[in-house]
């Protein structure tokens, strides 16, 4: 089931990430799909804060992978600068798609083409006209995971 949000600010985008975070479990994979300035890193900051990770969550565009240790480990990937199968393999991308000890969040997942795990949450972010951004959540695969994510996203308690 698709869930859609409208966000009017970076703080609202972060709040949506914080709302989803408690429903995430070790092994979960999220794809953040959207153009420059759509709010991908901002949303990832909300996830990190919701997972109890302290300290700044910086864009991984140049570092490719940032790891955060908190109550749950977070792997924050950005494939923006990569092109081609060699780059993707060089990063060890496949292992991040089945994280055995944490949660993986990937920005610019389309750079890896159709390399996908069986179950994942696709988050499409669209910078709209004016100041509104759309966040569209599409769970793919396992039903248990999908309903777990959807329950968190559709619950009323925000923040």
């Amino acid at each position: 089931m698709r869930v859609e949000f409208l966000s009017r600010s970076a703080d609202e985008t972060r709040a949506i990430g914080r709302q989803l975070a408690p429903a995430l479990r070790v092994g979960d994979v999220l794809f953040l799909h959207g153009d420059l300035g759509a709010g991908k890193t901002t949303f990832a900051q909300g996830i990190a804060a919701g997972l109890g990770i302290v300290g700044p969550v910086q864009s991984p565009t140049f570092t490719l992978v940032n790891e955060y240790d908190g109550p749950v480990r977070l792997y924050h990937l950005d494939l923006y600068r990569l092109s081609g199968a060699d780059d993707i393999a060089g990063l060890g991308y496949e292992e991040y798609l089945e994280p055995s000890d944490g949660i993986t969040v990937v920005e610019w997942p389309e750079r890896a083409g159709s390399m996908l795990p069986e179950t994942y949450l696709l988050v499409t972010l669209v910078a709209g006209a004016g100041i509104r951004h759309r966040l569209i959540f599409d769970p793919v695969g396992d039903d248990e995971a999908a309903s777990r994510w959807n329950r968190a996203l559709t619950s009323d308690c925000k923040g």
Partner: protein
Amino acid sequence: MLILGIETSCDETAAAVVVAGQRVRSNVVASQIARHQAYGGVVPELAARSHITAILPVVQAALDEAGIGRREIDAVAVTTGPGLAGSLLVGVNAAKAIAYGLDKPLVGVNHLEAHIYANWLSQPNEPPPPPPPFPLVCLLVSGGHSELILMTGHGHYRHLGRTLDDAAGEAFDKGARLLGLGYPGGPAVEAAAAGGDPGRFELPRAWLGDTYDFSFSGLKTALLRAVAPYRLSDASPDPATANGPAGPFREHTPPRLAAETPVGDLAAGFQTAIVEPLVVKTVRAAGAFGARAVLLAGGVAANRALRDTLAARLQEELGEGVAFRSPPFAYCTDNAAMIAGTAYWALRRGTQIGWEADVHPRWPLVVTPG
């Protein structure tokens, strides 16, 4: 003392030979070899990112250019962090093998510290510059970093501030893409901004109170909105229904802009909005901590607007007493000369690592009161 330096923390495979922390005998970067085809294609373009293929030819090239044999090296230095674990390991393992084979000391170098020490290196074919006086404040700005660091002596650092989201160099690259300019974004934005009116588009600066931190993510979104009226509609389908060759993802193509787009004014406004917080916070830190020198480091140090504005503002507010320095461009971007240079000062303090040493992907500059 001749030190061989090795750097593989991110994209570049690099090796260099530096004498006594200052005089650069050679400085080899794999991607540049590939670009210049100087070595008959020993390092293919495709492998520019593949450290394993590049590391041995690059080390050999550094020794050849320095005109020395392996046995003349006095120590081996290598970046042990921060960076990508897999990339760091290639350099560290190569450095261990070389040092072990030659029975020479091995020095592990922090990549951020090395960027600062690029300011100690000599220009090619010139005598070494006088060492910067302490205490000093260094603004390290590159694709992956935006850090403000106080250095009170060799090996003594205090991390004053950092970016909370995008790095300054990353902001330049992404702004260039939004403006339909080329890559790398820094030079492209700088060229487009020449002659532009920086005041025509009001783009936000994130001051973040009294902190020495930076934030450029909001600026990127603001530029996106400023450009929006000039964007030609692209024919891509709604992201929610797309399902093309990229799996469930829509392809994002670079924006197409109308011919009358004021790219120069937008670029000038964008560049100023990046430079201003960097300059204001660096000058404020220099004043607050009584710095005797201010250093630039990292790839964005090549930006003329940043260099000129910082130099002018320092003189206006703090007078002639504060020296301003910026490394030669070849030592601004990732390189191994800065690694070999840093190791000299570390060795003088007796700092070296053992054969069991590991990589430190998230190694911060250690806070040492000094």
